[in-house]
């Protein structure tokens, strides 16, 4: 699989009160095009920090982040914003839709940011609304949608600009099991249809089981990286945490 994102020797520490916490220690990993990868591990293992660094919304203390062959570690913030706008999509645990915008407008927003003309935006949003099966709720605001519907809108928004990768931080954590299944199935479908790379963090064994690659994190380091497709890997007991 063609290399898309590579991390080399990533270290990241945080200050928690007065004590320093190591979130990532010497993490090196590659992600290829079209992957459907779960970053798994218990709470505090560094999953979100790793996703943030891959998504260029956080910077490592040391190490290199290479996206599509370009080292973006020292890239200025404004250029990183441009990179995120054009090449990356995000899905959040809490959906993070813009409350004052309708489903249609939420999906349209990244396209507007990227400078798409109005007619193309409208066509693309309609296409996505149909694809995530939420077209009848296009005029609804987030608070008028169920959790599953919101996450569908969030998925459509993440995919709107045709990103090289969609980064999803615990995308099913706030959903019931049935809705989680539906959302994951949708992400899988989109991954297979469009070849978009999905990298998502989770500690839910049922979700991990759907990934075709699982990266296990433990105490900020990669414990194991397994290509499990098409087999199903049983979840270890230590990843089933609340």
């Amino acid at each position, binding site marked *: 699989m063609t290399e898309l994102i590579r991390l080399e020797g990533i270290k990241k520490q945080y200050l928690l009160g007065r004590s320093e916490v190591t979130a990532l220690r010497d993490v090196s990993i590659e992600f290829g095009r079209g992957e459907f990868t779960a970053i798994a591990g218990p709470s505090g293992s560094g999953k979100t920090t790793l996703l*943030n660094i891959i*998504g260029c*919304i*956080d910077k490592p203390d040391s190490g290199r982040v290479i996206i599509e062959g370009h080292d973006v570690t020292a890239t200025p*913030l*404004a250029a990183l*914003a*441009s*990179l*995120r*706008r*054009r090449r990356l999509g*995000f899905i*959040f645990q*809490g959906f*993070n839709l*813009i*409350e*004052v*915008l309708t489903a249609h*407008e939420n999906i349209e*927003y*990244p396209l*507007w*940011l*990227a400078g798409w003309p109005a007619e193309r935006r409208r066509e693309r949003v309609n296409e996505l609304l149909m694809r995530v099966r939420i077209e009848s709720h296009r005029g609804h605001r987030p608070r008028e949608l169920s959790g599953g519907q919101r996450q569908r809108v969030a998925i459509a928004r993440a995919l709107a600009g045709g990103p090289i990768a969609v980064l999803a931080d615990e995308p099913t954590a706030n959903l019931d099991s049935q809705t989680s299944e539906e959302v994951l199935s949708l992400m899988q479908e989109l991954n297979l249809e469009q070849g978009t790379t999905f990298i998502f963090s989770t500690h839910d064994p049922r979700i991990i089981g759907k990934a075709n690659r699982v990266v296990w994190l433990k105490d900020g380091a990669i414990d194991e990286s397994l290509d499990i497709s098409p087999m199903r890997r049983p979840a270890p007991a230590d990843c089933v945490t609340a």
Partner: protein
Amino acid sequence: MKLMHIAYRNLFRNRRRSLITASVIVFGAVALIVSGGFCESMFVGLREETIRTGLGHLQVYQAQFLEKDEDKPLQYGLDDCVRVAAAIEKTPYVRKTTAQIDFMGLLSNGDKSVVFLGTGVQPDREQAMGFSLDITSGSDISTGVGEDAEAVLAIGLAKSLNAKAGDSLTLLTTTTSGALNGLDVKVVGIFSTHIAEYDSKALRINLQSAQILLDTTKVSKLVVGLDRTEHTDAVSAQLASLFAEHRWPLATRRWVDLATFYRQVVTLFRAIFIFLGIIIFVLVVLSSSNTMMMAVMERVREIGTLLAFGTARRQVVTIFVLEGLLMGLLAGLLGLGAGYLSILGINAAEIYMPAPPGSTDGFAIVITKVPALFAGTLALMMVTLTMSSIVPALRASRLKIVDALGHS
């Protein structure tokens, strides 16, 4: 346009808080419009009253009168006022002129004498110029001279001599040659200028009677009445050219240069208005800054999301600044409407104010609708709200994405 869209909808996100902020703005706008309109009404009223109670729009003097002190009465008076008046009355916007003599002396009823400030006037010409005198009893003077000389006394002066219409009094003063002279006058009326200090000393007699009393053919000045007060400066300039052309050693003074009381009132009320404006500005800034800061705190995660999607930090600033601007515009427009209705209500209610210091009568409140004040108030509200949103906006734009996304 998208940012404007988001900013507009955010105004209605927390309706109660927006309503409170809007109420402060509306209250501030109404306060500015009503108080400013009241000041303007007072200024115009006082200006026109000042002009029409004898000051005129312009006064023409012999130049030396304005430069030197007189050793004798009318030493620097106007000699040939009829010819000068005729030339002035040919100037555009000039309605008419009237001559006046200012003099002072003692007014006696035989038992008691008091100091007076007299004015010799041409009542028929003053009437033609639209000048008015508030006669509280009796009537104004006619053209009678000599033994039939008439006088009207200001209310305070009449009271000090216990004089009333029909009484005979004697004016004593010095002539232009320095001799003592007297003139018997018949009181035909009592008037009021509504300025207590002036009312205690003023009296008016016919110009010719004054000339007889002072033994002169001169006058102190020519008072010029215009069709509109706004033409004062233009006519003043035209008269300066006229005098230069004829080589007349004359000079003009505008009403505003002579109306000391008017200037004091305007200065005082403008200072009060500016003070009120500053209070309202501070009130609106504090209220709206707090609102905007709360909006930032409530939307930290949303700001993090916007930034994560590649929204530029300046665009985040723009959203909050636009929110301030829109709030200022919408609430400001509401304020203008409320101010307009308030003016209509107050004017219809005919509320009376007590007599101001130095005045003898109360007056009905009249609020003028001043378009410039409406526009200025709206602009002030928009600028104030925009300024109030800058600090919260900058704070929002400087959030670290990771921290903002983790905010609960």
